């Protein structure tokens, strides 16, 4: 397997300038269809949507000792190394690039949105205009041309860096060590081991994940794993077998009934 390449987002360097949000829109030629209204947070855009692959989340907290914290988080597809979207997609529209991007093929997508429900982060979103799902591509085309993802290219504080996952994880460990000794005692890495094998988008957080509204221990939802591990593997032949079973039962019952003819009414065993 080729060496994994990852985007690292270091919250401690981010000023939420949202250059990344705009760079993504520009590179992917995404429209801004609806002007919402300000509802009380700079965030304005609540979540990713069919025309927005990445957003900046804003949340305010206050600690009696540390004071006010305004936590930013760049939010987008986490490019899980063991992606749920890939598992649930009935059309096999998802693949994993050899360097770790979770890639969705819009030509195969039928817009059923199973992936939206299955994703522990709720990332993929339906876009009406194309009747498909859209999400961050980790700028697959750019990366394969030797460029950085558009968001990383734009980021001027160095909050975003793109490179080999193993190297970036090491840098992240050192950064977390530094932050813990310099005013952020609960700094942590997110994405190293989450969801079993981790994600290909890594965060250096200045506090625990819940302070960034990140699922603390993201798990695949029960619906998904029942469907995935118990039902879908057998879906291909389970339904015909069930149908066949029904048909046989129907026929045999009728036959049995016909045989016993008069048993049917008021029969008592």
């Amino acid at each position, binding site marked *: 397997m080729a060496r994994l390449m990852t985007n690292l987002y270091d919250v*401690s360097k981010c000023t939420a300038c949202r250059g990344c949000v705009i760079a993504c829109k520009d590179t992917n030629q995404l429209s801004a269809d609806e002007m919402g209204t300000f509802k009380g947070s700079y965030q304005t855009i609540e979540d990713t949507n069919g025309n927005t692959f990445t957003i900046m989340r804003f949340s305010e907290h206050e600690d009696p000792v540390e004071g006010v914290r305004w936590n930013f988080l760049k939010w987008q597809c986490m490019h899980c190394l063991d992606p749920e979207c890939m598992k649930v997609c009935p059309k096999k529209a998802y693949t994993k690039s050899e360097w770790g991007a979770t890639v969705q093929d819009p030509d195969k997508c039928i817009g059923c949105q199973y992936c939206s429900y299955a994703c522990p982060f709720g990332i993929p979103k339906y876009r009406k205009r194309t009747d498909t799902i859209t999400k961050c591509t980790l700028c697959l085309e750019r990366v394969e041309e030797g460029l950085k993802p558009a968001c990383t290219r734009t980021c001027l504080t160095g909050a975003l860096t793109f490179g080999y996952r193993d190297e970036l994880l090491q840098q992240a460990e050192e950064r977390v060590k530094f932050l813990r000794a310099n005013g952020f005692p609960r700094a942590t890495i997110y994405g190293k081991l989450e969801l079993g094998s981790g994600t290909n988008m890594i965060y250096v957080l200045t506090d625990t994940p819940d302070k960034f509204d990140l699922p603390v221990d993201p798990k695949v939802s029960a619906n998904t794993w029942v469907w995935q591990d118990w039902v879908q593997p057998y879906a291909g032949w389970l339904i015909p077998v069930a149908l066949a079973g029904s048909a046989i039962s129907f026929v045999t019952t009728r036959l049995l009934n016909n045989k016993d003819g008069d048993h049917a009414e008021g029969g008592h065993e």
Partner: protein
Amino acid sequence: MTNSIVDMKNTDVALIMGSNTAENHPICMKWLGEAKRVRGAKIINVDPRFTRTSVVSDLYAPMRSGTDIAFLGGMIKYIIDNNLYHKDYVAAYTNASYLIADGFDFKDGLFTGYDSAKRSYDTKTWDYQYDADGTTILKDPTLSNPRCVFQLMAKHFSRYDIDTVCKITGTPKNKYLEVLKLFASTGAPNKVGTILYAMGITQHTVGSQNVKAFAVVQLLLGNMGRPGGGINALRGENNVQGGTDMALLFHLIPGYIDSPMNTAANKDLLSYLKAITPGAAKLPSANMDEFRAAVKAGIPNSGFKVNTSKWVVSTLKAWYGNSATKENDFAYNYLPKRDGMKNYSHIAMFEAMHKKEIDGLFIMGGNPVVGGPNANKEQTALCNLKWMVSVDLWLNETAEFWSYAAWERPHGGTHHMEKRSPKDIETEVFFLPACAVYEKEGTAASTSRWVQYRWKGAEPVGESKSDLWMIDQLAKGIQKLYKDSTRPEDEPIKNMTWGYGHGEEPEPIQVGLELGGYTVADKKPISSGFASLADDGSTACGAWIYCGQMTTKADGSLDYKPMWRDNKDNSKTGLGLYSKWAWCWPVNRRIVYNRCAIQPDGLTPWAGDDNRVLIRWDASKIADPKKPEVVGSWVGDDVPDCAKTSPPDKAVPFLMRPEGTGCFFAAKGALKEGPFPEHYEPWESPVKNLLNSQAVNPAAKIWEPEKLGKVEQYPLIGTTYRVVEHWQTGALTRNLPWLAELMPSMFVEISEQLGKLRGIENGDKVMVSTTRGDIEAIACVTKRIKPFIVNGEEVHMVGALWHFGFKGYVTGDPANRLTPHIGDANTMIPEYKAWLCDIRRA
């Protein structure tokens, strides 16, 4: 700025005060980030609210808007009391030892010489003590004489003790002490601190003195002229630096020279030059030849500005060419003369417009209906114009000031606004579409003074044109119109030189040639710099500070230094000078006052600071091979900011000052309200001044005394600011869907405590009112603003974005309908940052 944006990476402590750098000058965060990463630098952020800059700062301290001088005064007292100032630097490079005239005094907020009827000072007592010869300034190098600047400064700031300061600013005492300790640590010889500031410092009635307070701090700490130091103004927009360099200001001609007035003191070129050349007022010169001789001989206490005549005459030659001769005072009489009794600032202009004194207006790339203070009054004033020409990329609010939408106001406000309609308004409005920055070519001067050439990237859309083309067309058209006039008053138009290229499209490089200066005889560029300019008509130069920006290539063609793009750092210790990337004024000197980056002997770096040396004295170096008898020169990676061949004991570090030193005491009315900064409350303030009984800056002009909001009706502090997603009045950004989508509504920020008091919840619609107007907005109730405890009282703040107007994809009420018509005593910059308002649920 005195240093540069890249230079920020060399700092040990950055004080960001009066600036939301991360949002408004994001690129600085890259270099501050490098300082943090590589040098372990710390960032201090002082701001009325916790911003996106505060998030990445190491230390945040809240401070009530308009109390910067109190905050800094406390820092000055702390530095002096605790002996944290850089002693050798202060002794050698400042006027700390200079003795002040006996007549000078200060009492209860007023310096000597105040005329309360005129609201101005006679500044003759704000002067030094001189020897019997009348020109040698008396000094006390021990700094102990009670009349020396250092002692007078210590006495002045003795009232700014920590408790009093915190009572005024509302800063929690422990936080204030942390700030003082951390920033004062840069007084050590091997530590350098930088100050970044912007509109949060300047947009006050005491804006200039706010900056003066920075000067006092940075001179005490020995941070001027050193890599990673300086006082770094983050200019409010791209190329405003170029704009002010070119004197797009009401009181200057290019290069920050006072423009002439219609007074006896400026009646002819000689009188004018005597008035504006420091130290020349009492010269006996009877004519220009005698004056030239006096300049050549040197005028005591003049500093480098003794050469002002050369810059003025060269500008006149540039503008009037062959019509400017020795015989006719170089066409000095062609220059328009300001009325000495009038004020021509933005506020004054709109006040005059309101009184029907102005017929026409060109408004290029401006949008006062949204961006001007007292926007309701300014919009009404526009109705009195006979004609208006608006130039912008999109139809902005000012271009459409006459439309129905422009006069919509919220219901139930406290301010009565006469609603106009198009049929009542007789102004003839023209709109000229301008093309965007990437569709035209030319230079822009960044806040670092770097003049950088931009090449055209795309063709303009539709009929839009560059500003240069428009001005060129206007000039040509006007000259054509007047070409047969015989009236003497039309001579300036007829005789002005004009011609920047051959085709219809003017060539920026020809403009660059004029700005950079050339010898009149052969039109060759003066590449050495302004020291080569003459006052005898042999040189022409459109802007003396840009002199030297043009040179010639080996083949004789023009080499425009702003086009240089050598991406190599020429600093041997990695300081990030990039002297061959573009061109920086003056004379490509990247860090001004760099004489101070080495000890007075010119040889020894400041103890422990070997890597932050910019220039040093080489006693054996011959600077000019054509003058081998002149031995000894300053050498280094940056252009020396002192006379190149003057030995260390003679090379003054602040050569533009008459004193040649950095000045704690600003003598002779350099600033209108005093030689030392003093805290005054904003014009509209919820509290009394705790330091003196002056209600407001005694020298600030009060335009509308009847509009002074009373705290009983308007008890809250109002302020305005920006967000990174929008740009100025939003004329651009609210027309760009991706940006509009990020910030689609006008909102105001208030504390949770104020929200509770007024029953306002996050996301509620609110109305904010002042004596000037009312606006509707959405409330952002936030933890990032806290009430200020001012002298035991809880004082609240309402913070408003000012980006919104009625045009574009996303619209909202302009915050400037709330702000007042009052400005700084020196610059007239409006006090956008502190006024009184009230808020309620709408």
